[in-house]
């Protein structure tokens, strides 16, 4: 089985068959991760480069671990220590890396659409590790994987996505993935942090948190991007925590078997109560583990699929 596309840029245009294939492949990758010697030779001789124009702990490390477990060679470029500081353009940087023989570029970038732009100008596979406010497809996939792990099937599941929807690439990837797999998606956040006409994507939009959480099977809490407060889109972190934060009382409105998720990094006590973040119904740490399996699946399907 092969993926339809050479790049992983967004879940909007990913066929549902490819979503399914990645999730099923990730299932078998989990087995590798549980072995004592977590290394398979599948991607020996392949080279993967991470190119991050934004800070990241989990996503970049997750990709690098995934590549290493599969024996690919990895290089990472962080903007702070590269020629990007000398004013080199994205295109020149990418072509320079490519000229050294890289098979895959994994990029995070603050501007929406940058991975699509890059994919038109390089021959390596491009993986979007988060582009601006657009998408974060591998996060979306690992969230789907985590939900399936706990709930069996996503079809019919009531999933509430809570928080700063406007700036969230995680929200958009979750929405597309969940809608494709048949979930009932609700999004909620302060009216100034929800983008216009989101209903067209097939979701229910709320500007208060409570009705979105009520009866939900999964509550996925988004990080409040505190730097956005500069623009005055909401009055204060204090007010946000009190009226839009997910705490134990609000989570009580959800279904009895609710699954709590958060893509990290968390602002404890702001968008998510510290006590519930570490509760048994929280899958937050498991999301991180699953991230490695999902990324191994993607690397395998894009770089190793031919030999398999």
């Amino acid at each position, binding site marked *: 089985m092969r993926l339809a596309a050479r790049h992983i*840029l967004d879940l*909007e245009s990913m066929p549902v068959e490819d979503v399914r294939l990645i999730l099923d492949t990730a299932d078998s990758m989990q087995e590798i991760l549980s072995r004592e010697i977590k290394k398979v030779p599948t991607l020996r001789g392949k080279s993967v480069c991470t190119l991050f124009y934004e800070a990241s702990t989990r996503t970049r490390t997750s990709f690098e671990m995934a590549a290493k477990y599969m024996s690919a060679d990895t290089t990472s470029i962080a903007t702070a220590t590269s020629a990007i500081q000398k004013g080199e*353009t*994205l*295109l020149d940087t990418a072509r320079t890396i490519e000229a050294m023989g890289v098979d895959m570029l994994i990029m995070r*970038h603050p*501007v*929406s*659409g*940058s991975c*699509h*732009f890059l994919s*038109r*100008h390089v021959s390596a596979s491009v993986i979007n590790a988060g*582009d*601006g*406010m*657009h*998408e974060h497809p591998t996060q979306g996939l690992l969230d789907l994987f985590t939900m399936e792990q706990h709930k069996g099937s996503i079809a019919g599941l009531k999933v509430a996505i809570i928080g700063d929807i406007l700036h969230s*690439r995680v929200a*958009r990837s979750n929405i597309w993935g969940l809608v494709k797999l048949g979930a009932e998606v609700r999004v909620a956040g302060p009216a100034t942090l929800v*983008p*216009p*006409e*989101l209903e*067209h*994507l097939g979701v229910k939009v709320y500007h208060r948190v409570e009705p979105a959480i009520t009866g939900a099977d999964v509550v996925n809490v988004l990080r409040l991007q505190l730097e956005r407060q500069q623009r005055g889109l909401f009055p204060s972190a204090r007010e946000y925590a009190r009226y839009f934060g997910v705490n134990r009382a609000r989570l009580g409105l959800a279904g009895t078997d609710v699954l709590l998720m958060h893509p990290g990094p968390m602002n404890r006590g702001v968008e998510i109560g510290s006590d519930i973040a570490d509760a048994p119904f929280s899958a937050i740490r498991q999301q991180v583990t699953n991230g490695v399996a999902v990324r191994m699946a993607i690397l395998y399907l894009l770089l190793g699929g031919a030999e398999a």
Partner: protein
Amino acid sequence: MSQLLIKGGHVLDPAAGVDGILDVLVAGERVVAVGENLDGGDRVLEARGKLVLPGFIDMHVHLREPGFEYKEDVASGGRAAVRGGFTAICCMPNTQPVMDNRTVVEFVRGQAARAGWARVYPVGAISKGLKGEELAEIADMRSAGIVGLSDDGKPVASTELMRLALQYAAPFDLPVISHAEDPTLSQDGVMHRGRVSSLLGLKGVPAEAESVMVARDLLLAGLTGGSLHIAHVSTAQSVELIAFYRSRGVRVTCEVTPHHLLLSDQAVRDTWYDTCTKVNPPLRSPDHVDALRRALREGLIDAIVTDHAPHHQDEKLVEYDYAQFGMVGLETAVSLVAGELVGKGVLDWPQVVALMSTHPARILGVEGGRLEAGGLADFTVIDPGQKVTVDPKDFVSKSRNTPFAGWQLTGAPWGTVVGGQVMMWEGTLTAR
């Protein structure tokens, strides 16, 4: 005086009451006669099957000189204009140095005279340095040859400065051309705010960023009695506001671009963030596009302009947020209007003549816009049946930033005559 005879074309000028297969006789830079079976002419040009129209005037062009000659200059832009079927263009003052004084106006006019392609009518800055703080030397620029005032590219954020401009300019018969944009609403938006910006995660500019300012400027035009021209109208509300205040006697005109009539914000999604779709005002949602087309058909819009905004490839081959705003238009406008507006029944040719020649001349107070004996011999000759595929590599402009690459259109500029000089014929530029 040398004579030129253009024979057998479909000569059309509703304002002059001309519509038929006719000959046009030119002596020097003026039309001598329009009629059947005319004789004479040292040079006779055959125009059978072609439309012979009063010269098209593009009243919104960025020529980039002085300061940004790597994007375009007066000569290359003038040549692109002629290639695109325009006999005259207005150039905007956002140059470096800014065209906010007599010296720069005279320089640009001199460059145009030396280049000798299309007529170039400079538009002077409203405010010194486009800073939006104090009025530029408007009367002095008027005597140097400007035909209008604009801080185009930037809004006049100060309501008081806009009031002063409208009041001060009125006795000099200069329209104030408003780039209507509330900067606190547009902020750092890069596309229309709506369904598509939501799904692409790009910062949006609401339609109201324009319409709020259009409303403000209409009120100020009413207050001062000044003459207001709204540049590149892109929203349904703007059109409604203009129609309403015009009916109340406010002196207002407006223009629209082919790209706002033919493309919606969906183009940003369809091309996955192609920076050639990035323009200010942004490509709007389909409901706005429909409203603009309706208004155009109903005669609520006065002019079609290109807002030709050349940029170097390096300024477009970057991330969407970092790309410059703007697209070239001089060499695609006529084919887009012919193929997509006339060809699809939105407009007829008499309306096109009004929108691209008669009205612009009237708004600017310049000669032209009429094809009649005694008038300027400025003609746009169009082959309405020619099939073209837009290929930026064919452009004679220095820049190629168009969202229309690959479009297949019917109808193309075929001849351009400026002041009796044949600048282009049979689609080929005359060597100069």
